[in-house]
């Protein structure tokens, strides 16, 4: 193969690998969908994973949201100086936090925390034959490991994002009244100016899709880990990278479809 054809071969191979990856993921998700029938197995684990994925992730989500709200208020004020009434700080904080930064930053943070945790945990179980052990004990590993985590992600990401949105806006409000010489009525006036209830729905729909993406990608990479400790590390990294990318793709997708 010469220097001209090898890049073409590389592109071809990459395309085939990508297609095969989609195929494997499709087959994995089909297995997970089939396992939802085994509610007796996953039903009793959902609450545990909701606490683990959601409640334990809340502090980091709220921390990010609070500081994002502060920064948004200060940057809005800096941008608007003289040209736009200051109450538009409320518009910018509300809209950007609820529509974009709340769900996306929370999604990305949870991709790191939750996605990595799932991939590492399931990957370790794979390489130490614990998943095989589950099978020999009569458990469907999809029902035991994948379904409860995906359902927990689907339910808890929107809850985390709802709290993050609220804290982000509160962060912006506290900043506005303390550092920008704005009053609370002014901030609220801006917040309500272009607010539509659909904004909340949009934010939560995105959050649910991010939850689905992060948990299913984490489970997929964990499940397909082969080898030893290094392979677990590789799966964990891939899970975080791919789910972070998928969050951004889904973000654009929902903007095109719903706005």
């Amino acid at each position, binding site marked *: 193969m010469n220097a001209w054809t090898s890049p073409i071969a590389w592109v071809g191979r990459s395309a085939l690998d990508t297609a095969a990856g989609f195929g494997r993921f499709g087959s994995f998700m089909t297995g997970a969908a*089939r396992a939802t029938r085994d509610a007796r197995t996953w039903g009793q684990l959902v609450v545990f994973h909701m606490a683990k994925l959601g409640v334990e992730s809340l502090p980091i989500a709220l921390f990010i949201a609070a500081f994002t709200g502060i920064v948004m208020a200060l940057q809005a004020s800096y941008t608007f100086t003289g040209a736009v009434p200051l109450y538009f700080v409320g518009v910018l904080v509300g809209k950007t936090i609820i529509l974009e930064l709340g769900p996306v930053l929370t999604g990305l943070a949870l991709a790191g925390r939750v996605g990595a945790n799932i991939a590492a945990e399931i990957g370790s179980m794979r390489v130490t034959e*614990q998943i*095989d*052990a589950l099978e*020999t*004990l*009569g458990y*469907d590993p999809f029902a035991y490991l994948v379904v409860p985590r995906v359902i927990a992600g689907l339910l808890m990401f929107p809850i985390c994002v709802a709290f993050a949105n609220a804290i982000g806006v509160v962060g912006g409000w506290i900043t506005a009244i303390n550092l920008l010489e704005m009053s609370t009525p002014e901030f609220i006036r801006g917040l309500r100016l272009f607010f539509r209830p659909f904004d909340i729905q949009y934010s939560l729909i995105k959050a649910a899709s991010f939850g689905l993406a992060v948990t299913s990608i984490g489970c997929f990479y964990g499940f397909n880990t082969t080898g030893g400790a290094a392979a677990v590390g590789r799966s964990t990294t891939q899970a975080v990278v791919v789910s972070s990318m998928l969050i951004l793709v889904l973000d654009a997708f929902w903007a095109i479809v719903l706005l």
Partner: protein
Amino acid sequence: MQDVHKAFGSRVILDGVTLSARDGETLAVIGYSGAGKSVLLKSIVRLLVPDRGVVHVDGQDVSQLERDELYDMRRRVGYVFQFAALFDSMNVFDNVAMGLRRIRMPEAELAERVIESLRLVEMNGFEDRLPAQLSGGQRKRVGLARAIATRPKYVLYDEPTTGLDPVTTAVIDGLILKMSRELGVTSVVVTHDMKSAYRVADRIAMLYQGGIRFIGTPEEIQRSEDPVVHGFIEGLPELAQEAAA
């Protein structure tokens, strides 16, 4: 199993293996590392699917079982993993109880069964320990307790004594014999430890280059004149290499 073939990529592991275990016997499968012993064992419970050939458990073709039938079959087969494969987030009690919870055994009966299973492997008193707090031999014993907790008809042992000191190895061998005697299980023991094989097996099969090279009683294998078999059981690599060439 009949004419079972399994390859990973271009590497052929099993190349037409035909082997059966008799009711109540302990069949040891010996062979070099990488010979496909664990692949053979995993094929029995469909943790791996053969490329060709059939595996029967209680007359059922394992490859044809529907999902529920497959899990039903697996409940009749206990599996002891090479490194125990204990669930590291659970304590010993919960590890042993996993299979029993699956069959919805009432809690009181379940607790009794777990304690009894742990007593059989001489691990009672360790119920609250986590796997990380156990030695290698203790883990294997808990793995065995977990495998026999549902009182399976068959038990498959994947390298049960690998990495253990000679005394612990003898203890594990004793437990394998005890399971056979007290619970009447049919066992398949994969090992490359000849001392263990002689101790526990009614028959020994040697897996070599993808096929069964020899099958017979421990006495028969010791009298075998096949240089591959002789070289392996006596630990004489030059003899085995000569025969392979």
